[in-house]
């Protein structure tokens, strides 16, 4: 009986809407390919770089090739293979890994490491030709979610696979590939990245590690100290970034970043484990290089062009935060519902209280949102354009990171509230969850820097697109202004006359030509409209802001940060819509439950986003931007809490004539 309901629904829909309806579930060509040949991918889009999905929202455009279909693992066989593998990994961790002991000792034992290697967890991202598994990003992040049972292990494996291999895979030459990739896949070599330093942090251009050529010109001599190197004690292959002197135009000598592949056997490397609050078994180290001799062949890319590599490395490592949090929140929700259903207070189960249910609902909502964003982004990262370059998803990955660290605090707070005092007595999973989350969220880039990165990235694209419109509006003459207005309205008029050949943006095809052509499920139309209007007002606000500040926006950090928040919300909304649409059309399990969640998310974020947009609007009554700027600056310059203590001066209000006057008045009124 239960199996027949979805099929009925599908059939009914086919009859109602006809064939075009199935466009929503059509999958791309490469999705049908088996797991093994994922490394060779088909061409799907040809879009110039720096014009990614989230950036286009700022210009009021939603790219439908992203939204439909929601990315999936190609074939059913591939999916089954992946699920089996996940099960195997999960079983291994449940059987062999005791997180309590890992935390206590601070070391992952050699047996467990060997077991992980045997499972092939160190070869996930290595291409098939070099003896690896060659997983796509989607499959890789699915596995990370499974591994999130122990966050230290996730960090170790992720540091090896993604940031550790990223530089070598993307920028390394054939010799370097041949030399290292096979050993890396077997786990003989363990890779990691040494990028951050004490003095620089997120500012990767300000590193102080130095390298110079030896006299015979065969070696680079490396000196300096790197901090927060994950798995630093165990790793054998470091991707190290250091400053080298190069000659620029007019014989000017400048210091530019260069990337090196440094083996531990080169000598002069000493590691010192850092005592961190969380991720204790991840072996986070300070690595010191003293006159380490690196052969010239081991330079990654070109000398002086390491900055690009560094950027791609830090962009790649961000996304892992999402699946890790998603996995942990999954388990937290299952756990908390179990606990609350067993506990009775005031004669009823805690899980029957509406306020407790609200907390559970909040956690579910955030998890659903995060999950949709993570797999959407991971799926799109697998795309490759005509020139063979992967899709630029750095902004989207940053969005996922910022969002996951935002909901991390709120969801864990709800979780601990529901568990009650049991979470306070140094309880093992609770304390650990928070500490691991704290370390890993800071390790992957600070939220404020990422917000600026997101906001400025969107504005950069918007400025390029909107420049003509701004200029026309600025020109002042009636004629120019009229032309600019006409340009905008012309498209809309053409739609009204049904002459449009191109569906205008932003649109899910809900208005304009025909309602039957849309890929959206009919019940989601309302949400689609809300997202469209939100995108419209976002684009309008971006236009206003650009017209007001222009190039000076780089100094208006408050505005940029707020715009980034809007971009995050909007991206989340679209991901949820796409995912919910998929589950509706395919009639997945609990599709109606998903519908409820999507509905709540849309309502909530719609309101929230409009409030943020009001804050940066031209009407200053909405916000407190000026007060915030001034007061913040004052506290920062004085370096202390400024207001006087409430008890600083004896205040004899009882003798004050004004007070007495009012007191008498009150007495008169009461009598």
């Amino acid at each position: 009986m239960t199996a027949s309901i979805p099929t009925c629904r599908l059939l009914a829909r086919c009859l109602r809407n006809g064939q075009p309806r199935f466009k929503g579930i059509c999958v791309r060509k490469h999705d049908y390919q088996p797991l093994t040949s994922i490394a060779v991918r088909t061409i799907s889009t040809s879009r110039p770089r720096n014009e990614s999905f989230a950036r286009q929202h700022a210009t009021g455009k939603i790219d439908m090739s992203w939204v439909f279909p929601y990315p999936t693992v190609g074939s059913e066989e591939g999916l089954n293979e992946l699920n089996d593998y996940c099960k195997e990994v999960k079983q291994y961790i449940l059987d062999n890994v005791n997180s309590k002991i890992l935390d206590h000792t601070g070391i992952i034992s050699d047996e467990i490491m060997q077991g992980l290697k045997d499972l092939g967890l160190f070869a996930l991202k290595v291409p098939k030709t070099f003896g690896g598994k060659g997983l796509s990003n989607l499959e890789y992040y699915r596995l990370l979610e499974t591994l999130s049972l122990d966050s230290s292990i996730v960090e170790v494996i992720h540091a090896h696979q993604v940031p550790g291999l990223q530089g070598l895979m993307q920028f390394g030459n054939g010799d370097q590939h041949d030399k290292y990739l096979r050993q890396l896949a077997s786990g003989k070599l363990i890779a990691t990245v040494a990028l951050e330093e004490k003095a620089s942090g997120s500012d990767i251009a300000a590193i102080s590690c130095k390298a110079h050529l030896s006299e015979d010109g065969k070696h680079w001599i490396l000196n300096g100290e790197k901090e927060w190197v994950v798995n630093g004690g165990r790793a054998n292959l470091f991707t190290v970034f250091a400053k080298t002197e190069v000659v620029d135009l007019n014989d000017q000598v400048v210091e530019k970043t260069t990337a090196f592949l440094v083996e531990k056997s080169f000598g002069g490397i000493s590691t010192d484990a850092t005592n961190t609050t969380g991720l204790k078994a991840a072996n986070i180290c300070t690595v010191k290089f003293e006159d380490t001799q690196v052969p010239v062949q081991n330079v990654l890319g070109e000398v002086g062009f390491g900055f690009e590599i560094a950027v791609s490395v830090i962009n790649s490592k961000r996304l892992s935060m999402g699946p890790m949090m998603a996995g942990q929140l999954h388990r937290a929700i299952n756990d908390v519902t179990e606990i609350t259903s067993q506990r009775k207070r005031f004669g009823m189960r805690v899980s029957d209280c509406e306020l407790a249910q609200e907390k559970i609902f909040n956690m579910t909502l955030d998890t659903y949102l995060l999950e949709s964003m993570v797999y959407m982004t991971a799926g799109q990262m697998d795309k490759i354009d005509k020139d063979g370059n992967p899709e630029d998803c750095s902004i989207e990955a940053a969005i996922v990171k910022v969002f996951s660290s935002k909901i991390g605090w709120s969801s864990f707070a709800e979780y601990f509230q529901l568990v009650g005092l049991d979470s306070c007595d140094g309880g093992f999973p609770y304390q650990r969850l928070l500490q691991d989350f704290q370390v890993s969220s800071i390790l992957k880039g600070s939220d404020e820097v990422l917000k600026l990165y997101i906001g400025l990235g969107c504005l950069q694209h918007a400025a390029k697109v909107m420049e003509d419109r701004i200029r026309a509006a600025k020109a002042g003459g009636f004629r120019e202004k009229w032309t600019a207005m006409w340009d905008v309205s012309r498209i809309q008029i053409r739609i009204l006359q049904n002459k449009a050949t191109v569906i205008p943006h932003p649109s899910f095809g809900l208005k304009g030509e025909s309602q039957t052509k849309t890929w959206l499920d009919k019940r989601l139309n309302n949400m689609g409209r809300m997202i469209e209007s939100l995108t419209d007002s976002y684009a309008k606000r971006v236009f206003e802001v650009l017209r007001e500040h222009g190039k000076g926006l780089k100094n208006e950090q408050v505005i940029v940060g707020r715009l980034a928040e809007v971009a995050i919300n909007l991206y989340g909304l679209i991901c949820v819509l796409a995912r919910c649409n998929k589950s509706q059309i395919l009639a997945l399990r609990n599709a109606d439950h998903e519908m409820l969640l999507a509905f709540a998310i849309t309502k909530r974020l719609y309101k929230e986003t409009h409030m943020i947009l009001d804050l940066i609007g031209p009407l200053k009554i909405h916000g407190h931007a000026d007060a915030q700027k001034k007061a913040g600056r004052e506290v920062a310059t004085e370096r202390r809490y400024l207001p006087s203590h409430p008890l600083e001066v004896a205040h004899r209000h009882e003798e004050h004539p004004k007070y007495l006057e009012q007191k008498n008045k009150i007495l008169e009124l009461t009598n």
Partner: protein
Amino acid sequence: MQLPKACEAVCCKFFRLLQPLCKPIVGNKVLVQHNGAQVFKRSINTTQVTWQRLQKESTENEIDDESEIVAKDLEPIDSSLDIEEDASLLEHYINKAKHDLGSFEDIEYMDVFDPNKKLYYKMVDLWLKEAGETRRGHREFIVTVMHAMSRFNVESDISAYTKLLDCFPQGEHTGLKRDHWFLAAFKDKIADHLLGDKLIRLIAENGAIPNEELHNKTTDLFGKFSPTTFAARSILFWYGRLVSFNKYPMSVSDFKQLSPIEVAFYGLRQINPGLDGNYQCFPVDKTKCTEILDAGKIDSIISVQTPEQQTLLAKHDPMVPIFIEGPNLCYFREKTVQYYVMRTDPRNKEPDTASKSHILATKDWWTDFYKTDWKTDKKFQKDSGKLYSSEWLFPTIHCDKNLSSKSEIERDICQIEKDTEAVEGPVYAIACTDYNSPAALQGWIKGLVQTNKKLALCSVVFREEKSFMLNAPTTDPTEIDIHDPNFLEDAGFQ
């Protein structure tokens, strides 16, 4: 004074208004002539009777606006006072207070630990006891005490001033109250109001913290619309704002205890602000220095340098000289601080590089045709226009400069004169010392070299520029004989 009965009522009013001014002066003089407390007491007792009688009469007849007529007859307080006489009055009460200090009533001043302060409160209490309800001679007493505040070390205690306000005649019928705006409109100069005003100015000068009690007492005594209450309200309003403006508030009594070096430190903190400032004290080589300083002077060099100044100095071009300018004077309350500034001249504009180097035609052609560098055959980077990219993490917004609405304002400004040109170069360090010779200042440079290596390469020039304050004539202007043709030169003018 013989007057017809019809005029009696008017005279009574006159007398009532004149009474607070005239009577105590008479009483005071009696006291001083005989120099005995008993006589003084007796005179109080006699006046007390007349005062009470007059009060009863005055309540029968309401006064309206005669106060304006009275005001012309008043004399300022100070001119009627003889300081020597007041000093003896004060001495009398101090002696008495010293004698009585151990008594049981002193339990009130348990929280006052300073014996001088304790003496002060005791003395005022004694006076209050003796003066009685009418507070006869209160203005003389208050003025005398106001002059002697520093002697008791109570300058920065607000309770000392509120205690003085108790010395004014208290109660409803003193005739001092200006509770209605109409009365205030006449601006009558009542001696007590002026004295109260002076008292509050003294509070502001001495930096005592005004409180609610002060305001309440002045409103009770003088009414809402009196100048005294206005003054009290204004210092209540301004005190917090001035404190926050000042950043480093210090009471008068604290300031008195500062050593010259501490004064120099506080002065330097004002001259060269910055929380990261590095304060150092360097010795002076006295064998090389011929100057001999007085006892209270600073015989070492106190230097301050912020990290920004240190980085500026590190970037300094060794070919350009560094100047030490001074001595300059800075007044810190009544004390002076003498300081020197280490700075350089503003950097001139760099000459055009285009006129220097000759560009080859082939090079031009090459870059135009191949879009690469002539020498290395490398491609130019989009973001920097050079061979290597500028290492900047954040995306940059490429937008026309004049496109934003804010840039419109900048475009309208044009420079008419060269008034915005930099006249002064960057300041590298500032130091305080009372020596004037370059030999002494060598100690400063020696000390600074330890933290600023670049200074060893530079040539330092001592440029003596006395401030106009130091050039001022030292002779007393009253002693100058104007009829002498060379009087200007004698006085020190050039």
